[in-house]
């Protein structure tokens, strides 16, 4: 009996919380490292289609994005598919200038590796996409990526 009594009088030892900040810091650093701040806010809807044979885009800094889809604000802009470059609506004819400025902002030896990622809403008609592709061909931006989400095949 006396053995059990001994234990009782100490009570539960308090769990030391002194390492809590360290754990939180660890989590913090993890998220800090993996964080990519959203570069563009999209003003067009880009619900990406799904595909199974996808590849990862290697270097994020060497990718420029073109968004195509119907405007988020249908009341003001209508529901026809529009192109978004940087933060605003653009026409097909603005693409060469966009590509040139993207090239300007990269290092000379990295310019060849520049990829254009097309983020296109799935209900978009191919007409617009084709126009964009033709424009890209003209300015020599041959490397493109049709941005898609991963789909698992059964």
């Amino acid at each position, binding site marked *: 009996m006396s053995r059990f009594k001994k234990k009782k009088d100490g009570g539960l030892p308090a769990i030391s919380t002194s390492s809590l900040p360290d754990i939180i810091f660890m989590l*913090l650093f993890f*998220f800090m490292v993996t964080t990519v701040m959203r570069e563009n806010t999209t003003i067009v809807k880009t619900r990406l*289609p799904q595909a199974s*044979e996808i*590849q990862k885009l290697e270097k994020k800094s060497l990718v420029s994005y073109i968004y195509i889809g119907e405007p988020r604000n249908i009341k003001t802009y209508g529901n026809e598919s529009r192109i978004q470059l940087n933060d605003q609506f653009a026409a097909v004819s603005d693409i060469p200038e966009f590509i040139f400025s993207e090239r300007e902002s990269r290092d000379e030896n990295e310019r060849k590796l520049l990829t254009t*990622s097309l983020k296109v809403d799935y209900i978009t*008609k191919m007409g617009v996409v084709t126009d964009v592709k033709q424009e890209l061909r003209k300015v*020599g931006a041959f490397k*493109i990526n049709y941005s898609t989400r991963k789909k698992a095949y059964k």
Partner: protein
Amino acid sequence: MARKLPEVNAGSMADIAFLLLVFFLVTTTMDVDTGLIRKLPPPVDPNQKPPDIKERNIMKILVNNRDRLLVNNKEGSLYTLKDEVKDFMSIHLDNESYPGITVKNIKLLGNVPTSKGIVSLKNDRGTSYKMYIQVQNELARAFKELKDELSMDKFGRKYDKLIKEEQIKAIDEAVPMRISEAEPENIGGRN
């Protein structure tokens, strides 16, 4: 001796860290951009004559503005497309209804028969992007399976498990992904 400095209370450290943590949690977008990477062909010279390609070497795939498929002048379906492409691009020796064969000498592989086949993809301006991606995906699947088969046969492992650069190159050369995209047409009226 100098008086001991009062200890700084570190109890609120966790709270500060939490605050930062929450901030980064909220702003994190972890998505890696994935997709189908393609290379566009350089613009064609309008004066240049299109290359002469035998009828049997071309597989024509048309997608109309109702997202329906026409494969070699017959109605096709997404479910059978992959196998049709694969069958078309496989090696069939001495068979007139399949594309011609050339024997290429490739490093590491030796003399390999390769198909002269070309998949020609043509879509309408009114085709939906979703359908286009699905077709592209099926084509990619067909070529990937062909590569896997050859790679299994030659190197004993699947194509995407290959590590050596020259092995990948050899397979790529033996099974070239020849997809030609025709200039689009406005078949189905206004888009």
